[in-house]
């Protein structure tokens, strides 16, 4: 690298900068810098004439690097780098000195401001003096996507992407697609049947030529980076060949093992061999390895004997497949906050106290009670039902600080559904306040109160316990200030939504961040709500935060659109400001390998080697390496060394 | 008070030429003293050049002592100071002190055949001898110049060498053949063997990479040159140039004082520590 020929361009920003900073002095001081061969000021550097002046100066003075002293790089770094590129030199040789936000706008004294602007500019000049001309790294793209989670979010995203021509691998850890939506009976605000709208989509997914559905599978390991991920997927054995299984149900008839049915949230039982729902996709049975009397050494073998289609194969083993994809959508959904955590409501041990999903199953035509609302303890029709909102939500002291957003709505739905099922029953709803933002939502709640006659009580339930075959509910109506006591037949808790266990697991495997509540963290809460921090990994559905179906579907579509846009390019470009190893200094201690958050470094023949596509240029390696053997291009230790000097001169 | 031997004189760069491109580029610089008073030197002597803020380095004076207006240096870009030198422009001011070291006994060689064998940047230290001899052409008999570089791009003093033709026998070579190169292909020592310069009444002066020097000397001996007829220069790390900083010694002698010019006869008697 020979000595740089740097041009410095100082912007007045109208009077924004010039009011505090003596721009001419900055120009003069910069011209005293060893590498500076040209310097000027201009009233609006970012304007067309300003930019053209830069181009002209670059050409006239054979500049090979540029410093623009102006506003924050977040505003115009791209502008000026593009401009520099237009002038024929690498955009990465251009540095921004932020003398507006970090100087002119925060200081009034002109001398002081000018002094600081000089330091900031000088520091940028020093950095530019050692910038390498870099070109973005081109990364070839694999035009396939992996979707993790087969709830409505995953299903919608898969369909959208597949329809746009991308190959999709949809990975679901459970035995069927559908997620929580498949458990719902009717959905607010229109009260259409959940399965009715979901099942066709599930079928479409399963038949789509571009979608490979992998149920009962788990993603174990993901390596690579945007454009080129490699996923190791574990296929758990179902011991039933879906191709052969004709869902005759003969096997369950003979299976001697009875276990609680998790799909019915324990409201019913199932056998060791089972199908989650009638509408399950794939339409095939699954043998629960844990529950089965034992595949080894002596198997009971009854189901296999019973299966005429010969679909059962006890020798199935877990299998791992490796899929290469260019992008990943994470749609791993939510779980309900555990009832066991709620002390005041009996830790989930009080009979006939249900959670919302259980109630959905009670209402569902395909559910445990075939759509009859019967209380679990004695299968009688409950006459007094208490619905409690905000259980676990909005309680920073003990539970979740956030609002689960959907509970107001589904409680109203539940009260309505109940009244539809048991018109002479009484529905009490305890609420703190009602959040019914959304199209048709407020009207829905009003209907619940007014038309369906649900009794809304504002207040908290302080305690509930089993009493005389009923559930005693003690609470206060804060509007009247009176204590309320209800002997309920059944209580339905609107438990908070929390990120699913699968979400935590996926975040770990993908090495993507989660927020303080454990939901997947978006790259930017407003501007990049469907992207994770890691390039090429997108978020959809309740895994990112509590939301209802319309919102979930919208976000899934958005994620799909992002992926489609991303993978429509033949190659991706990656910032070239990545780490570089000075081989002669590296001793192969692997400290950088441990420190790198992106797993971008590995050792080869005792020396560190950086995967430039994975490296995000964070510099954690630089600060960790004792020998300065690894540093980020254009943010080298030498550059910082000289910038420190510039700041203190 | 004794004169300050560490205080460089200031000199202005008046001419820069890029000799060889690439990572280990070579540039030729001419400098003229700022305050008139410069030193006189002899063929083979060196000077300490300074780029202030970067440091000093020892460089052979590549111009003939007969040239009084300027001193010429050809510098390879290898490290801190040399790289800084390469960044300088005509008009820039550097520091210079010297001359240091002994010199080629050119006057003793009058009336003899002179054979110069250089490789790479090793042409610079012997260039003043070549140009001095050529300038006093009638004092010497045959003048032969062997010079080789890695590739045609690596040949320094290209046009100057061409100008020597007619006055001297010039045998150029490159290590590896390339289109448009019609002179010798192969290493310098081989070229010497190929052309078989005669040892009769001759002096051979060689300078270049250590490995080249080794084989050139071997070959010269084979051609019948006596140890006293072969001269070369040594290069050891130096800081003061005055025999005090203690690092360039080979045995009892400091190369900066007793060297850098040695006959093979002398060198053979020194411990092998260079």
């Amino acid at each position: 690298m020979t000595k740089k020929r740097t041009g410095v361009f100082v912007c007045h920003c109208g009077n924004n900068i010039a009011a505090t900073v003596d721009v001419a002095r900055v120009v003069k001081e910069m011209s005293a810098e060893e590498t500076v061969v040209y310097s000027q000021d201009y009233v609006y550097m970012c304007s067309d004439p300003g930019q053209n002046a830069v181009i002209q100066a670059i050409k006239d003075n054979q500049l090979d690097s540029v410093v623009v002293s102006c506003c924050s790089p977040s505003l115009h770094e791209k502008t000026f780098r593009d401009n520099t590129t237009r002038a024929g030199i690498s955009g990465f040789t251009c540095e921004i000195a932020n003398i507006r936000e970090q100087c002119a706008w925060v200081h009034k004294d002109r001398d002081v401001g000018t002094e600081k602007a000089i330091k900031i500019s000088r520091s940028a000049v020093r950095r530019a003096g050692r910038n390498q001309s870099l070109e973005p790294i081109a990364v070839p793209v694999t035009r396939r996507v992996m979707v993790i989670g087969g709830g409505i979010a995953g299903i919608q995203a898969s369909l959208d992407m597949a329809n746009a021509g991308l190959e999709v691998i949809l990975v679901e850890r459970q035995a069927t697609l559908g997620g929580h939506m498949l458990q719902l009976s009717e959905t607010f605000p229109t009260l259409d049947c959940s399965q009715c709208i979901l099942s066709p989509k599930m079928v479409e997914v399963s038949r789509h030529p571009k979608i490979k559905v992998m149920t009962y599978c788990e993603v174990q390991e993901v390596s690579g980076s945007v454009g080129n991920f490699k996923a190791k997927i574990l296929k758990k054995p179902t011991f039933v060949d879906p191709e052969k299984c004709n869902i005759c149900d003969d096997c369950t008839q003979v299976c001697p093992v009875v276990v609680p049915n998790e799909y019915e949230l324990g409201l019913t039982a199932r056998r060791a061999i089972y199908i989650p729902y009638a509408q399950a996709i794939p339409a095939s049975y699954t043998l629960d390895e844990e529950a089965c009397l034992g595949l080894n050494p002596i198997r009971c073998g009854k189901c296999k004997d019973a299966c005429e289609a010969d679909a059962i194969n006890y020798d199935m083993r877990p299998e791992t497949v490796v899929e290469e994809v260019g992008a990943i959508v994470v749609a791993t959904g939510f779980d309900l906050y555990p009832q066991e955590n709620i002390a005041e409501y009996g830790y989930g041990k009080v009979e006939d106290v249900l959670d919302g999903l259980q109630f959905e199953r009670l209402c569902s035509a395909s559910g445990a009670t075939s759509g009859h609302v019967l209380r679990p303890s004695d299968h009688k029709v409950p006459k007094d039902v208490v619905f409690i909102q905000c259980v676990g939500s909005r309680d920073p002291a003990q539970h979740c600080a956030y609002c689960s957003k959907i509970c107001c709505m589904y409680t109203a739905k539940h009260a309505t559904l109940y009244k539809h099922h048991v018109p002479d029953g009484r529905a009490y709803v305890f609420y703190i306040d009602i959040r019914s933002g959304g199209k048709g939502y407020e009207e829905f709640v009003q209907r619940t109160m007014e038309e369906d006659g649900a009794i809304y009580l504002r207040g908290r339930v302080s305690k509930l316990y089993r009493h005389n075959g009923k559930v005693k509910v003690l609470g206060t109506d804060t509007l009247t200030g009176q204590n309320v006591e209800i002997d309920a037949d059944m209580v339905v808790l609107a438990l908070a939504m929390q990120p699913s266990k699968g979400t935590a697991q996926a975040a770990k495997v993908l090495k993507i961040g989660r927020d303080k509540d454990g939901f997947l963290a978006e790259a930017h809460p407003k501007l990049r709500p469907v992207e994770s921090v890691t390039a090429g990994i997108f978020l959809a559905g309740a895994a990112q935060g509590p939301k209802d179906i319309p919102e979930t579907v919208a976000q899934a579509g958005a994620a799909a659109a992002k992926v489609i846009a991303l993978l429509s390019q033949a190659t991706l470009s990656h910032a070239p400001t990545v780490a570089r190893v000075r081989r002669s200094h590296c001793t192969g201690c692997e400290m950088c390998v441990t420190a790198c958050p992106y797993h971008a470094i590995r050792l080869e023949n005792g020396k560190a080697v950086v995967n430039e596509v994975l490296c995000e240029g964070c510099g954690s390696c630089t600060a960790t390496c004792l020998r300065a053997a690894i540093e980020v291009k254009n943010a080298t230790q030498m550059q910082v060394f000289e910038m420190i000097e510039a700041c203190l001169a | 008070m004794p004169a300050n031997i560490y205080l460089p004189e200031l000199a202005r760069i008046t001419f820069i030429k890029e000799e060889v491109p690439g990572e280990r580029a070579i540039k030729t610089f001419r400098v003229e003293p700022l305050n008139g008073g410069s030193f006189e030197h002899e063929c083979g002597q060196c000077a300490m050049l300074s780029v202030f803020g970067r440091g000093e380095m020892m460089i052979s004076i590549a111009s003939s002592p007969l040239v009084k207006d300027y001193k010429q240096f050809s510098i390879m870009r290898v490290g801190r100071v040399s790289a800084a030198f390469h960044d300088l422009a005509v008009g820039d001011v550097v520091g210079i002190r010297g001359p240091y070291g002994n010199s080629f006994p050119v006057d003793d060689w009058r009336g003899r055949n002179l054979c110069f064998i250089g490789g790479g940047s090793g042409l610079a230290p012997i260039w003043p001898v070549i140009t001095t001899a050529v300038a006093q052409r009638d004092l010497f008999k045959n003048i032969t110049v062997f010079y080789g570089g890695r590739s045609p791009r690596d040949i320094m003093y290209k046009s100057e060498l061409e100008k020597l033709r007619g006055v001297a026998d010039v045998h150029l070579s490159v290590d590896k053949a390339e289109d448009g190169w019609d002179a010798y292909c192969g290493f310098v020592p081989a070229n010497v063997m190929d052309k078989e310069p005669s040892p009769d009444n001759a002096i051979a002066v060689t300078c270049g990479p250590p490995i080249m020097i080794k084989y050139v000397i071997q070959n010269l001996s084979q051609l019948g040159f006596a140890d006293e007829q072969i001269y070369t220069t040594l290069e050891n790390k130096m800081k003061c140039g005055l025999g005090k900083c203690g690092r360039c010694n080979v045995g009892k002698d400091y190369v900066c004082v007793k060297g850098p010019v040695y006959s093979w006869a002398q060198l053979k008697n020194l411990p092998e520590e260079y």
Partner: protein
Amino acid sequence: MSEEQAYEPKIVAFLCKWCSSAGSDLAGVSRIQYPANATPITVPCSGSISPLYILSAFNKGADGVLLSGCHIGDCHYIEGNYLARRKIYLIKELLEMVGVEPDRLRMSWVSAAEGAKYAQVVKDFVADLKPLGPQDKLKADRT
């Protein structure tokens, strides 16, 4: 003017690009005034700040060194700030043990949304540095 009032501590502020630098921008956008003592150097991540940068800044005459990054958990590079926290803790302890005023090295978490906080951090730092006077313990004493 007494000497103490005239003394303006020199601060080098290493700001991570994603949060603290953006936070300082927000201070600017909000026109929050704060002392000009701290000259910012933007680094990719607080995790990239080598202890040598800090020592070097002191060696070159900084009266105080400020390091600022994203809040824990918010690091743009996932965990760079965790690594920084550990390293900076160590060097801070070391400086203190040698007898350098611990107030000369300050670390803060400033998010992109905390313009006011950035201004406050600088204000507080300057205020805390003033009574300490010029830093000459690690400053180059080569003349």
